[in-house]
């Protein structure tokens, strides 16, 4: 995607071009799965279970390396010992990249909200695009999270501001989160919470 690679466009892209690029991106998401705890099994059920079959949504699991991935699903409890590895993984993924936080633990700490060794929310380390609540979420909930992310990608602009923000690792404020019960905090609240990963 040469247009997007250098991060800047001389002028705003034409609408059909934007639509086509986003349409192509949203149906070829290479998903790197960062399975940590219980949610990893539900994620595996969504990936490998014939009943859910995530691949019909255009999500391609099991890339050989994070360097080939577009999307990472953080599923499970993030501990303080694991946090540096997650940050490193995130930095290895080429831009533009998306993060789905799956399960209460990686959303906010979940049942371990007062534990001494658990990171209360993966959004303290990396910016998150879609939160999927549940302990653990059903595979259908993860599928809905993927669909929401795809809607979000479709609505992304390819103008200078949006892409530049995405490249800085920020969640662009003007991309509206799909308002279903799955989306938890508003994008504004989240944008103020997370900074650039390299900051």
């Amino acid at each position, binding site marked *: 995607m040469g247009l997007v690679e250098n991060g800047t466009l001389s002028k705003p892209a034409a609408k059909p071009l934007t639509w086509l690029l986003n349409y192509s991106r949203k149906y070829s998401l290479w998903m790197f799965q960062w*399975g940590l705890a*219980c949610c990893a*099994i*539900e994620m595996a059920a969504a990936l490998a279970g014939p009943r859910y079959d995530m691949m019909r949504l255009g999500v391609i699991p099991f890339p050989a390396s994070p360097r080939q991935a577009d999307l990472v699903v953080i599923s499970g*409890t993030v501990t303080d010992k694991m946090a540096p*590895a997650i940050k490193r993984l995130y930095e290895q993924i080429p831009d533009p990249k998306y993060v789905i936080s799956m399960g209460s633990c990686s959303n906010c700490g979940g*049942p371990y909200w007062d534990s001494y060794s658990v990171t209360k929310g993966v959004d303290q380390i990396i910016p998150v695009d879609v939160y999927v609540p549940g302990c653990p979420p059903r595979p259908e909930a993860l599928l809905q999270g993927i669909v929401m992310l795809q809607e979000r990608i479709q609505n992304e602009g390819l103008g200078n501001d949006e892409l530049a923000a995405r490249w800085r690792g920020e969640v662009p404020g003007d991309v509206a989160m799909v308002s279903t019960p799955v989306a938890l905090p508003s994008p504004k609240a989240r944008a103020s919470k997370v900074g650039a990963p390299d900051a």
Partner: protein
Amino acid sequence: MSSTDNPPMPEIQLEPGALRHLAEAQVNVELDTGDMILNLGPQHPATHGTLRLVVRLDGERVVSADPVIGYMHRGYEKLAEYRTYPQITTLVNRIDWLSSFANEVPFVDAAERLMCVEAPPRAQYIRTVLTELSRISTFYLFLGEMALQVGALTPAFYGFRDREYVLNLIEGATGGRFHPNFNRIGGLKDDLPWGWISETREVMKKMLDGCDEFEDLVAGNEIFQARTRSIGIVPGELGAAYGMSGSNLRASGVDWDLRRDGRPYLVYPELDFKVWTHPDGDSYARYWVRLQETRESCRMVLQLLDQMPSGPITAKVPRIIKVPAGEVWTEVENPLGQMGYYVVSKGATGPFRVKIRSASFSNVSIMPWLLRGVYVPDVITILASLYFILGDIDR
């Protein structure tokens, strides 16, 4: 690496050829090259979570392997001191997340013993049924995953497909697909829904058929046998000395099952079941034993459904549960092995101290000994065959 890092190898009788790769090590001494350190994890699909393994390699062979654990440590024993007893059952669901219901049983058993309360017979039967169902769902995942680790993709789909039927049953009875949190001190939250028993009977037949399928497709497969036979042999006495338990130990020929040999719990004393063992102790034996145990669990569920009594499902317990002062140790046979809780109560609404003995921690402690001298591809096979859950190791 010095020879003092690992305990000495006991004298075991192996078939000729079983340790042939150790003899080939002589060649490598002459062509001595520097060791390579390979870092496996902390995230790898074969590790069922976040186990990190630092492997020192000499060519294709492992010189030493050091497991680094703690990536999934969530501080259970400390958290348990700040929770009330009903809240802790929510937590202990998530220790071994594949067989959640089986984790609740020993803890609730401990609290009931301290309070001198006994759950009514129907509650005991339903608990046993759900424990065995969680065992089936755990082992079905293993039967598929283990084949996946040796490179066969199809059985993984079969395992995930059939496991959904059991999860449906658990969800139908408890409302939770994964973490039921169905036990209450003194009984259960609810009775079984209408039609559940007949549906379970049908699903169990399906599961038994699925076991036959696995036996033909995986256990009888020549490639699978070549990858697993005489790989990762655990001698029975050594495994017991390391504290291994459950199917891993029974696959080494040790005939020991807490459901039969331990202190009686639930309704296992009234059940007619066989404890399966295998004399070999290799990766194939661990697969085979779990396959047989899945079948046995299906038969046990069918037996239990036939004998299911009627009656109440909760004993009389106060609304706010205060457990009298005292201490108790309970241990049960979980799908992964021996799981126990040591609960110290000082008469408050929450325990003073909870010590958790989980099976996987002891099961993987043999890993540095077991992985010494194996080839790199066999590391994954052995890890998969030991079948640990990281939440069960780190807690």
